[in-house]
């Protein structure tokens, strides 16, 4: 006899469906349209609700959680301003293909379109920055919609999905039936690559004399780090990672030539410019990576592997496109390489590596280590040493983000958590909080700057309430550093509105939120301060490092330049524009 199904209210279906999806944490903020749901949350204990202080914080925290764990982050906000506040975080996740499920409350169905209190067209507002969105118009559709949302958000090229739920739907009741599987006739992401294309790629791979492996965030998303590492080491080819791909290949390995792009290493960018074969793996040829497209990889044939067909040949024509999940495609390539007779051209490869080592000798990331003014790079380097390169590191956006990427070599995927595509200031602190909730026993650091940090500073309060002891390293140069750098280079040092006057006392600020604050002014105090902060395992610590105001991020490829036209710290006086 079939088991009789329970009749549940929409709000209860919401809680039950999340439980059935295995959701442990829900980041949210209550409001009128979601009060039924909050009442249902009150009566259950399967899901821990994390009350943020601003909806932007909820989306970033869920995003950090998702990036660190690989599981979707889940958010609940109310209608109107709750939804609009969440949009920045949704767009942040969208640009970096991070799976989020964002529930937005909505006014009751009969009120929609009447300019009701706290009504906005959440579907319309979020449509351009989600993978998909749903408006639930009948409580009978709620469970299946939630199932669809999780499926769409986590499969194929992941991304955020919004579910807009009118208030009356959360009060209505129906039988609860959570589907085990779901199929959408209009959505069937490809997983396996085309065998013919893979064979073609394998042949081309072995014919290369100056190959370059360029891998991105797709490798992290697809959990393909092991495959990438095996593939690269089988061939012995140099590997560069994009900002989003850092950690996917162990950064301390000898085949790793550093990050590429606007602030990439000299050897990575020169390698890109001179290579005769480029193997792009889960990377999307972003403008910060390619520089001027006219000058991009002028001598190279290009193989591109990506799960999203629209990423292939979007900016740069490709010789061998392979649509598929990079993990599966790399596995197939590995087995062809292992079983085939062909070998890489060892002689040519030796010459190529010699050339790369010559570029490396330039030591493009060197900075002044003699001064007692704190160099921001030094702070990151010390953090790396003291955490043995094994911390989860989130960042905000700007100079500190680039220094974190350059000076904290990640050996494991999902350790480096930053807003690469959208470049969202304010991301770092809430994201770190999300990571810490997922991994309470791991060290979680947030490398930030004083300008970014204050954009979501209110989440310090959440950190206290939910006991998420994170370490915040604020590289405080009293400027919006990256804006200042561009103004110095391209606007004749007219520092228009990039100087931060009237900054708060960050030590007192940390203390007022119930945390530990430190102000560090001398280079010689950096190590001791970080050590002390790391030892305070149960406390959130805000380290306010007073850093060199004039420090710039090098190397740099200016807009309109190619990979071979980098600006180095040693030619700081050279004209850029």
């Amino acid at each position, binding site marked *: 006899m079939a088991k009789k199904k329970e009749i549940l209210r929409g709000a209860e279906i919401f809680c039950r469906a999340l439980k059935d999806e295995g959701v442990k944490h829900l980041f949210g903020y209550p409001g009128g349209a979601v009060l039924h749901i909050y009442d249902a949350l009150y009566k259950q204990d399967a899901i821990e609700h994390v009350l943020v202080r601003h909806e932007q914080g909820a989306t970033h925290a869920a995003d950090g959680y998702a990036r660190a764990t690989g599981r979707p982050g889940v958010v609940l906000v109310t209608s109107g301003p709750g939804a609009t506040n969440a949009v920045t975080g949704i767009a942040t996740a969208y640009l970096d293909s991070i799976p989020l499920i964002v529930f937005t409350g909505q006014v009751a169905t009969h009120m929609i379109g009447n300019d009701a209190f706290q009504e906005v067209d959440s*579907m*319309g507002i979020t*449509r*351009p920055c989600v*993978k*998909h969105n749903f*408006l639930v118009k009948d409580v009978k559709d709620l469970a299946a919609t939630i199932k669809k949302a999780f499926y*769409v958000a986590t499969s194929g090229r992941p991304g955020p999905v919004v579910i807009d739920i009118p208030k009356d739907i959360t009060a209505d009741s129906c039988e609860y039936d959570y589907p085990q599987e779901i199929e*959408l*006739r*209009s*959505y069937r992401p490809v997983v396996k690559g085309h065998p013919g294309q893979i064979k073609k790629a394998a042949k081309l791979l072995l014919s290369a004399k100056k190959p370059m492996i360029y891998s991105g965030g797709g490798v992290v998303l697809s959990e393909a780090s092991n495959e990438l590492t095996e593939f690269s080491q089988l061939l012995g080819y140099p590997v560069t990672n994009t900002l989003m791909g850092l950690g996917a290949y162990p950064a301390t390995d000898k085949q790793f030539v550093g990050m590429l792009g606007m602030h990439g290493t000299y050897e990575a960018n020169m390698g890109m410019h001179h290579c005769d074969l480029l193997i792009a793996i889960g990377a999307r040829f972003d403008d910060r990576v390619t520089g001027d497209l006219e000058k991009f990889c002028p001598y190279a044939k290009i193989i591109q592997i990506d799960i*999203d*067909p*629209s990423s*292939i*040949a*979007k900016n740069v*024509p490709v010789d061998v496109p392979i649509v598929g999940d990079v993990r599966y495609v790399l596995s197939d390539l590995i087995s062809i390489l292992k079983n085939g007779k062909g070998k890489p051209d060892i002689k040519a490869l030796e010459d190529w590596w010699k050339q790369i080592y010559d570029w490396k000798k330039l030591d493009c990331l060197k900075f002044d280590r003699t001064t007692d003014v704190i160099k921001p790079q030094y702070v990151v380097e010390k953090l790396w040493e003291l955490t043995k390169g094994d911390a989860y590191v989130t960042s905000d956006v700007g100079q500190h983000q680039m220094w974190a990427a350059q000076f904290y070599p990640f050996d494991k995927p999902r350790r480096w958590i930053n807003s690469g595509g959208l470049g969202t200031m304010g991301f770092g602190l809430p994201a770190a909080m999300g990571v810490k909730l997922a991994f309470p026993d791991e060290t979680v650091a947030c490398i930030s700057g004083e300008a970014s940090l204050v954009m979501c500073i209110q989440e310090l309060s959440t950190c206290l309430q939910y006991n998420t002891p994170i370490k915040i390293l604020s590289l405080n140069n009293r400027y919006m550093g990256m804006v200042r750098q561009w103004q110095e280079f391209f606007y004749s040092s007219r520092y228009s509105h990039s100087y931060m006057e009237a900054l708060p006392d960050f030590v007192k600020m940390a203390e007022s939120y119930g945390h530990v604050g430190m102000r560090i002014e001398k280079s010689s105090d950096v190590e001791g301060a970080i050590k002390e902060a790391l030892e305070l395992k149960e406390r959130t610590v805000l380290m306010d490092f007073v850093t060199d105001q004039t420090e710039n991020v090098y190397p740099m490829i200016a807009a309109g330049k190619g990979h071979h036209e980098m600006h180095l710290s040693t030619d700081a006086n050279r004209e850029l524009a």
Partner: protein
Amino acid sequence: MRHILSLLMENEAGALSRVSGLFSARAFNIESLIVAPTEDSTVSRMTVVTSGSDAIIEQITKQLNKLVDVIKVVDLNEFRHIERELMLIKLIAQNECRDEAKRMVDIFRGRIIDVTENTYTIEMTGTSEKLDAFIESLDNSMILEVVRSGVSGLSRGDKATQS
């Protein structure tokens, strides 16, 4: 180059805005766009006339395919195909113009579907080029109002695009 893209998509609220939003967000051209349900009421057929280089058309097709509600995208330019557009046009038809208007409608195989003392309203179908040609052949001052449906099309022969 001008392309006719034919889409099958879920007949859901907001599906049209997903497509039109995609075109505006990515700065793709739309010359015309029409949408209506098919014989299966859960599926809509949308026909978009757009233009761009091969690379742009490839991107448009890929981006459309990426939309979760889109079931299938076919570029009709890749096949031998038929295209038709419907136009209703209201003309001043007085005195000596009246006979002239009637003659032109006959030449272009249109039909007069509404008549007043002063006007004719004409129904005409054909390729967009033919409709353009009809408008050009008229004295501009005769035209009171024009409404065009936008292009719809199908591939020739036995093949069919199905969901």
